């Protein structure tokens, strides 16, 4: 075990994969000479050289598509999309090409590419650089999407993504890049498998990325006994683990860093409601951001994503009442 920052865990995963498999190459904007704007490819160019490590022009469609083509030919390209919003100019290559290539080649071609993208709010980047956007990839058979919550999962999920024979999007919570954690290098995650952060008996909390940490704080401060499930893979998500937990606890909260309407959490709540209707002791619900763009101002942005205080409040509510609690903006009656 080594203590490292999340961004260093990413570097380590890249380097370990590139050492193990020479078909792994990486490219993206300013990832080579500048080592990534978030320093997530520090030392990679130096170790692996310019044939395998490349800076690209500002051409997300072009280089994402190039990764698709290179992957068809047997390379394992890892591309960096600096901010997930930039896939808005290149979604086609991910959803309509990469995810459908195996199907349209009658199973003769795989697309073992990885897309790394920083995501999420909290750092004052404004509403065009702070979203999580998991929903862009929903309902897309052929694609996989993962999100780490700490240094270990950043390392282990990225290695799994690179090794995976299908296209995988790795959404990296930008706010965690500088966070430290213990990392066991060599440990590789299983895509599609959730991880239990805490186990308990009274309630199941499902979260993703940084929200796992927020939820953990909330569980602690609320002093409850909870299964905290770090989903890690959003597509395809670990139904088995979540259903087993809710069967046990009878209660479900999903904590989500995305606007309420149509986020990934609705999939979890809807599935659990359908599958475990009679096991539920209280209303399953989501704790999300309000339906607003991510505000720049620090005070406002601090209220955008769920806070541990607010999650704690809602956990307590869920344990004492059968109906779902109101979100904070309703409780506080914020004028519009």
């Amino acid at each position: 075990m080594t203590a490292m920052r999340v961004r260093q865990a990413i570097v380590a995963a890249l380097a370990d994969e590139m050492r193990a498999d020479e078909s792994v190459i990486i490219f993206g904007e300013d990832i080579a000479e500048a080592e990534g704007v978030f320093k997530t490819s520090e030392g990679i160019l130096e170790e692996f050289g310019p044939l395998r490590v490349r800076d690209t022009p500002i051409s997300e469609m072009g280089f994402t598509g190039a990764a698709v083509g290179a992957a068809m030919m047997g390379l394992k390209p890892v591309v960096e999309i600096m901010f997930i919003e930039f896939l808005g100019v290149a979604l086609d290559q991910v959803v309509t090409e990469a995810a459908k290539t195996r199907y349209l080649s009658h199973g003769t071609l795989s697309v073992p590419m990885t897309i790394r993208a920083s995501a999420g709010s909290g750092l004052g980047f404004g509403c065009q650089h702070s979203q999580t956007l998991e929903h862009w990839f929903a309902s897309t058979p052929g694609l996989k999407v993962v999100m780490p919550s700490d240094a270990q999962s950043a390392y282990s999920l990225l290695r799994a993504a690179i090794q995976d024979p299908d296209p995988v999007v790795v959404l990296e919570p930008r706010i965690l890049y500088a966070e430290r954690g213990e990392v066991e290098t060599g440990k590789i995650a299983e895509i599609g498998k959730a991880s239990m952060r805490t186990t308990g008996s009274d309630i199941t909390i499902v979260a993703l990325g940084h929200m796992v940490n927020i939820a953990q704080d909330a569980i602690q401060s609320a002093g409850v006994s909870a299964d905290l499930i770090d989903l890690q893979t959003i597509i395809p998500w670990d139904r088995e683990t979540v259903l087993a937990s809710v069967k046990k606890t009878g209660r479900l909260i999903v904590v989500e860093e995305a606007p309420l309407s149509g986020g990934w959490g609705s999939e979890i709540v809807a599935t659990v409601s359908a599958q475990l209707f009679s096991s539920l002791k209280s209303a399953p619900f989501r704790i999300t951001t309000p339906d607003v763009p991510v505000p720049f101002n620090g005070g406002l942005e601090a209220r955008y994503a769920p806070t541990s205080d607010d999650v704690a409040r809602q956990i307590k509510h869920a344990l004492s009442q059968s109906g779902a609690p109101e979100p904070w903006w309703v409780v506080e009656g914020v004028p519009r």
Partner: protein
Amino acid sequence: MTTSIERRNALYGNDVACYERMVEIREFEKITNAFFAAGSIRGTTHLAVGQEALALGIASTLKPTDVLAGTYRSHAIALALGLTPHSVLGEIMGKATGCCGGVGGSMHMCDTSVGLLPTSAIIGGGMPIAAGAALAFQVQKSKNVGVALFGDGATNIGAFHESLNLAAIWKLPVIFICDNNIYGEYSRIDKTTPIEDLHNRAESYAMPHMAIDGMDIHAVRKGLAEAVECARSGNGPTFIEAKTYRFSGHSRADQALYRPDGELAMWQKRDPLLLTEQDLIARKLLTQEKIDLIKSTTEIELGALAKQVEKDPEPELSAMFSNIYTPKKVSK
């Protein structure tokens, strides 16, 4: 049964075989058209009648290990590259015998044994993919090349610009071939594009470029061979504009009434089949009788094949659930 690769290999150095394949394509598209009109083909079809010389010029110049990313209009290039009429028609008709098992349809041809990557129904979709394949060849230090084949209308989409720039800056072994048939759907190129010689757009990327006569298989081969040589020897990409003409409408029931009077007739004088026939006769490789025989035989054979394909099995229900993710390896 003949395989794709055998059909492909038959073309090299054999101009008569190439001509026969052109006839095959022409007859094949007649059948496609008739079947579509009769309602036995669902969805849409995009015929490539009149563009056979380009397809054969490409297929007889590239190696089977080179790869090509094409479009929804790929019946001709698929047959040229080696796919059997059975697997192409099977796919168009949604049969289990189709090259994609019947789940793809007319717009989605694929056969990696002869280098045909899954064709994309999204304009510009294949261009960065061809560049990416070339990137792989460069990294793997193989001598293969990637080819993107696309229409004139596709030169106005962002992916075109980004792909050419990326290919140029990385000196990728990729060749961009624009099949300039003067129309994108129902719009004549001059309505959507302020320049006529599209290959000049390569100047924006300091990329070598050329216009070639897409109706003449020799011109296609000559231009492409030059580009391939450049790519294989590490000197990077080329942009080739092939001047062709779409003899049919854009797709489905399009009668192409928007075309100016006489335009089709003018281009038909340069029908690639006609030009090739004249050439082969002049070179004494074929006679008119032989040509007539090739045509009638092909017509009969494809007609028989079509009847057979009609009776081919439909895909199983499981086909709908297959080939979405790569199956896990049983052991490591």
